[in-house]
């Protein structure tokens, strides 16, 4: 069915198409219309699923884990502070190895309070054991919900999957997209076949106490699941193309990289924007290509190495920051290359808190990075405005206040 819809509604419709059976969620800010639509669909009898509105995101994730353990296909959605509040249970979901899918609408974390797009929320959950994918279009959001269950329910993976879509740019804007029917999805995605489930005939406790002598192996097992996903993700993408005829890349997506001398590396909608920059630079005869990191976890080491080998330079765009270090994607890309490929890599920090990033700004920074004019890290759109002056003014006023008090 071809629809003109918001990214949020499309994700909800895709969750319905994959036959999700339980949706636990916290329905209040910063929740998005994904859950609003799921609730609507269930209330109208158009979605055969149990909706569990809970009192917090922490509980939403706990219910998500439990729902999956009963053998049901479970789904949830959250955003920014909601995801942050789930942090503890994110570890539980990964540690208990439940193949759930959760959409996260990428928004900045406060303060200052800000509901706009950046990747700080999900990047901050990098080490919880979840698989992470970043989509770059409305259609990819739909198709990745479907692919996500193929990946996470694979018995060699069995790790939760976080589907990240950029706030507003993808979540709230309307775009045309194809949403497959349940019958069409069944040709690609079989019903969930759990390895085991909660059953009174064989009672067990999942996520129980575990002593130092037995702990490490469970964590190594999670990493093995992540490693296995590296081959399941491309397989799921290939089979998706065979059934639906659409392709959004596998672990990564490359664009005009074949003869590229310089590459932009980015995630999410900034990669879509970079595509425009690549086309414009190509028109000027500059051989630039784009490497879009689709899966951030597991990180596509092999793909990054292969695609970056022999280039004159790379510009890694981060819409996040690891404080005291650098952009998170920048760190990962360099780690993939270290000891394998020698390529100059520069980091561009832009688009934090939803600031608009234009293709011209990307072009300008690509040209400067390629010419060797950029330092390691560039805050590409940082400039002081009238609003920032308030800090200075209040500081001055406070200084006066304190000196008056002393006299």
């Amino acid at each position, binding site marked *: 069915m071809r629809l003109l819809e918001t990214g949020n509604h499309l994700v909800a419709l895709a969750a319905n198409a994959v036959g999700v059976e339980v949706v636990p969620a916290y329905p209040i800010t910063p929740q998005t219309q994904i859950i609003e639509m799921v609730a609507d669909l269930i209330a109208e009898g158009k979605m055969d699923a149990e909706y569990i509105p809970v009192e917090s995101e922490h509980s939403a994730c706990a219910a998500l884990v439990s729902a999956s353990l009963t053998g049901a296909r479970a789904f949830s959605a959250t955003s920014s502070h909601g995801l942050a509040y789930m942090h503890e249970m994110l570890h539980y979901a990964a*540690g*208990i*190895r439940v193949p759930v899918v959760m959409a996260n609408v990428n928004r900045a974390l406060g303060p200052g309070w800000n509901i706009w797009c950046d990747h700080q929320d999900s990047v901050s959950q990098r080490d919880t054991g979840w698989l992470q994918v970043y989509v770059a279009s409305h259609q990819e959001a739909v198709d990745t919900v479907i692919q996500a269950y193929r990946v996470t329910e694979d*018995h060699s993976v*069995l790790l939760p999957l976080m589907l990240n879509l950029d706030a507003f740019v993808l979540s709230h804007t309307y775009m045309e997209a194809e949403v497959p029917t349940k019958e069409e999805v069944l040709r690609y995605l079989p019903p969930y076949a759990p*390895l085991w489930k909660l059953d009174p005939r064989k*009672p*067990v*406790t*999942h*996520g*129980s*106490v*575990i002593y130092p002598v*037995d*702990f490490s*192996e*469970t964590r*190594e*097992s999670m990493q*093995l*699941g992540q490693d296995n996903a590296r081959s399941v993700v491309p397989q799921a993408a290939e089979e998706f193309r065979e059934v639906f005829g659409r392709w959004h890349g596998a672990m990564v997506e490359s664009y005009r990289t074949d003869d590229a001398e310089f590459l932009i590396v980015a995630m999410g909608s900034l990669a879509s924007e970079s595509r425009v920059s690549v086309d414009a630079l190509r028109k000027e005869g500059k051989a630039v290509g784009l490497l879009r990191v689709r899966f951030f976890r597991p990180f596509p080491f092999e793909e990054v190495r292969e695609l970056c080998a022999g280039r004159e330079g790379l510009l890694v765009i981060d819409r996040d920051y690891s404080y005291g270090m650098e952009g998170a994607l920048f760190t990962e890309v360099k780690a993939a290359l270290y000891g394998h490929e020698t390529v100059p890599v520069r980091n561009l920090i832009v688009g934090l808190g939803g600031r608009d990033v234009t293709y011209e700004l990307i072009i300008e920074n690509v040209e400067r990075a390629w010419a060797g004019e950029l330092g390691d890290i560039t805050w590409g759109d940082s400039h002081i405005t009238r609003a920032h002056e308030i800090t200075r003014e209040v500081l001055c006023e406070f200084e006066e206040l304190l000196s008056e008090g002393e006299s």
Partner: protein
Amino acid sequence: MSHEEEVGYMTSVSRPVKGCAGNTGEWRVFRPVKDDEKCNNCLLCWVYCPEACISKEGIEIDFQYCKGCGICAVECPTEAIVMVKEEKQ
């Protein structure tokens, strides 16, 4: 078998074995004491005991595992269970 194959799929799972958390009765500060004359055998204590320390037959309390939480005493409709402070040994 490689080390990776040996690790394979591994999670923290336990079976509900009696006493798997140790002799939790040692934690007890207050002990539930039952008055058989007041007890009407309604089994609410058996239903509410979070540690399954009360037997359905005979309403016997297992003091090896009873933590002394007092829920049974609160729930008992005939006040047949009272909490008595344990004597220090």
